[in-house]
């Protein structure tokens, strides 16, 4: 980085700012909000319909049930005594927390 930047000359400068100001960003079309809301409603309706007309939350519940079942069977067949449940849940909690933070900053 050269000297000028280190000294805090951080903006674009008056000349460039003037040139850029002559080309302001375009405004959203008048129908933008209405179209976005229509898209939202369409998305909601689609989600309500779900796959094979079965609401999505039921699929999620069924999936979660399967995971719990498989996990339980695996634990039953291969009991582990190295790590306690509390340790596992603590680790999972911290992973979930970290993921939530990351998703929040990514706007998801």
């Amino acid at each position, binding site marked *: 980085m050269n000297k000028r930047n280190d000294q805090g000359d*951080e903006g674009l400068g008056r000349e460039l700012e003037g040139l850029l100001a002559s080309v302001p960003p375009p405004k959203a079309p008048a129908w933008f909000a209405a179209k976005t809301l229509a898209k939202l409603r369409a998305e909601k309706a689609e989600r309500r319909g779900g796959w094979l007309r079965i609401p999505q939350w039921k699929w999620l519940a069924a999936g979660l049930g399967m995971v719990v079942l498989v996990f339980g069977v695996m634990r039953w067949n291969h009991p582990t005594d190295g790590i306690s449940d509390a340790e596992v849940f603590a680790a999972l909690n911290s992973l979930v927390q970290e993921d939530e933070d990351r998703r929040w900053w990514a706007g998801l």
Partner: protein
Amino acid sequence: MGIGQDEPRDENLMAQIATGDEMAFRQLIERHQDRVYGTVAKMLGGTGPDVEELAQEIFLRVWRAAPRYQVKAKFTTWLMTITRNLVFTFFESKKNRRNELAVQALAGEEDFGTAREASLSRTAADELSGKELAEAVEKACAELPHGQRMVVHLRQYEGMEFEEIAKAMGMSLTAVKALMFRARENLREKLSGYFRASN
């Protein structure tokens, strides 16, 4: 884009949106649509269906994220983070396509280098039409690398502080200032002919 005294703050609107309030969502869109649409358009180098679709997707993400929204920074900074992520993902998905929107919209009949040389050879007596100047500025901005373009836009048109830009871009303050510095040097070089002509 100022908020009147009687109007709810963005954070309050987000709380309403989290409960599924579409009217609050509409209000939020109307308040920030120019900011988001303008940013996407500047980043993509023009208006068009892609710009509209991306801008809409940004607001839909806001809707989806509303239940988990926490006030960790200014709302606009968060909004610009979403905008940046989506725009950069868009660029990433179009990386291998040579006819990226920015190039499409701005590819004139002649190469920019030729235009610049022409402008340099212009005598001071020649008049620059507003349209020609605007096109040159648009073209120079569109030719900036994505990061530099975003920093210039957020600083110049959104009036954001460097700290806010750093948060929105997920970068350090130093990195943002370095991007701005390089952008300025690039723009100066690309538009040098116009400086001379306007003097």
